[in-house]
């Protein structure tokens, strides 16, 4: 197993990280990546960027615990989680998750699960920087519903 977790203010290049990720694989059949890009359209106005605040080491500990859950639940060969903090401009990548498994369903589900964790439970606070000011954004109801899917299926 090869796991990388990185939470920092350094820029994220999804293609470069996917390239690094592939170089760590020996026998995986399926590789899934997710990248989240800062969108230009906010609630009411054009978004220039985000500011992401973390709380170390709670943020890191939480991501590690979610990664542990994913590893227990799916047969993964490798896993990467990169998340940016600080100021991130529109069009830049804020998060990158990659999973590898010989079963493609496992790779898809684990990436999906980790993204749901990052969107709803990971210890980050997010501020939108728009043309008209700055506003803190808390998760949408949809994000919580997405995350609850995994709790339901725990009981299967």
């Amino acid at each position, binding site marked *: 197993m090869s796991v990388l977790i990185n939470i920092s203010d350094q820029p994220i290049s999804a293609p470069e990280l996917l390239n690094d990720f592939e170089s760590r694989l020996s026998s995986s059949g399926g590789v899934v990546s997710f990248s989240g890009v800062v969108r230009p359209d906010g609630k009411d106005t054009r978004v220039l960027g985000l500011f992401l605040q973390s709380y170390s080491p*709670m943020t890191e500990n939480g991501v590690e615990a979610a990664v542990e859950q994913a590893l227990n639940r799916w047969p993964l060969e490798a896993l990467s989680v990169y998340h940016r903090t600080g100021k991130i401009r529109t069009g830049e990548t804020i998060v990158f998750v990659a999973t590898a498994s010989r079963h493609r369903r496992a790779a898809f589900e684990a990436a999906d699960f980790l993204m749901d964790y990052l*969107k709803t439970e990971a210890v980050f606070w997010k501020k939108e920087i728009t043309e008209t000011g700055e506003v803190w954004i808390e998760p949408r109801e949809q994000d919580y519903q997405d995350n609850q899917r995994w709790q339901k299926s725990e009981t299967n």
Partner: protein
Amino acid sequence: MADILYFGRLSDITRKPTESIDLPSDISHARDLRSWAEARFQAAGVFLEPTVRIAVNGEIVDDAHPLANANEIAFMPPVGGG
């Protein structure tokens, strides 16, 4: 001294992300610090919101958790990244 941290929109109200205070003698549990912050920052109930959680030394606690000087105490509004 205890370090008090205000995350997310709370720092807009407190106008500082963190401060060190000597815990007043009437603050013995997490719920007391909520009332204290509420009064101190005239926060219109924000510090009493159940979705604003309190962490002590990096662990989420409930309102009955005891507080002491030397603790790092964080007020955490709802979280979420990506």
